């Protein structure tokens, strides 16, 4: 087995980790912090890289756990809806880059409305193109559970999306 090199094997995962963290935390700055912390954690355990089945899956797992921790922490310190906060410009929205039009914004909203697990699995499957087995490894549930969660997520998106499109709800 080839030796794992941080610069060549771990660092290129940053975008993948970032997208996952962003999907969970829904905040660009938080997600970036999460990725950084993930990298440092993985670096801290570099002695164990050789024994791992998949370093990528390990990184994604660490990233997901950190992101969940962060978002839970954030939930308890929600900002108050005061006058000054209400007037923050839209351009600061972290998703403005990927949300290009109304439809995109709608889909984004729908996916963001899903529970964390479904969101994560949908992200790993439909955006990163991972197999059920890989997702099961990363999330730490059975393949069946992954399928069930993915099914629910896709059904919900489809249902809400068609409803809104057909009836303008």
């Amino acid at each position: 087995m080839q030796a794992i090199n941080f610069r060549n094997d771990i660092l290129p995962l940053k975008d993948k980790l970032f997208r996952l963290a962003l999907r969970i935390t829904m905040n660009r700055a938080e997600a970036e912090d999460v990725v950084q912390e993930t990298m440092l954690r993985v670096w801290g355990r570099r002695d164990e890289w050789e024994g791992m089945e998949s370093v990528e899956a390990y990184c994604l797992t660490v990233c997901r756990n950190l992101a969940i921790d962060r978002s839970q922490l954030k939930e308890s310190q929600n900002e108050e809806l005061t006058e000054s906060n209400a007037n923050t410009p839209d351009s600061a929205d972290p998703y403005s880059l990927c949300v290009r039009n109304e439809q995109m914004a709608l889909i984004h909203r729908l996916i963001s409305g899903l529970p964390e697990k479904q969101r994560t699995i949908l992200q790993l499957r439909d955006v990163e193109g991972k197999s059920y087995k890989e997702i099961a490894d990363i999330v730490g549930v059975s393949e069946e559970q992954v399928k069930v969660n993915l099914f629910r997520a896709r059904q919900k998106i489809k249902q809400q999306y068609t409803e809104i499109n057909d009836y303008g709800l």
Partner: protein
Amino acid sequence: MDYKYIEQLLERYWACETSVEEEQILRAFFRQKEVPAHLLPYKSLFAYEDAAADLHLGEDFDERILAQVERPSVKARRLPMRRRMMPLFKAAAVVAVMLSLGTVAQHSFDRSRQTDYNYDAYQDTYTDPQSAYGTVSEALQIVSESFQKSQVHDSDSVADTAPKQAVQ
């Protein structure tokens, strides 16, 4: 054009029965410009996922991470007691060597003043045999006198203690 295959794939996609490859086919299909009207609503769904896959971190992120990761780390090493005492042992060994060397040197310097047992190397101190004889017999006389004196003294002290023991 027949879109049966795509429709079929889409059905299976919603039921989560498609493989990763089949989903790639779907994605590629919806990526093209012309999509039949009844499938058009789904185009933006797949377009969104494509866009979501295109998010990247800034270039400066690499440098920040590498700066933190590749800085030389100072690791604390655990030293066993023996290793920790090693310098002391060394110092003690050096002192011991110095002391023994000193003793040996002192010993060799002193040897010149010590009694010489090699009689062949003796040199005559008297030229006249008669006076040498006289001196020697005088010396022997002194020795024999002191022997006698001590003998008398010894027998006196024995005689002093013996009656006392008898009385007791």
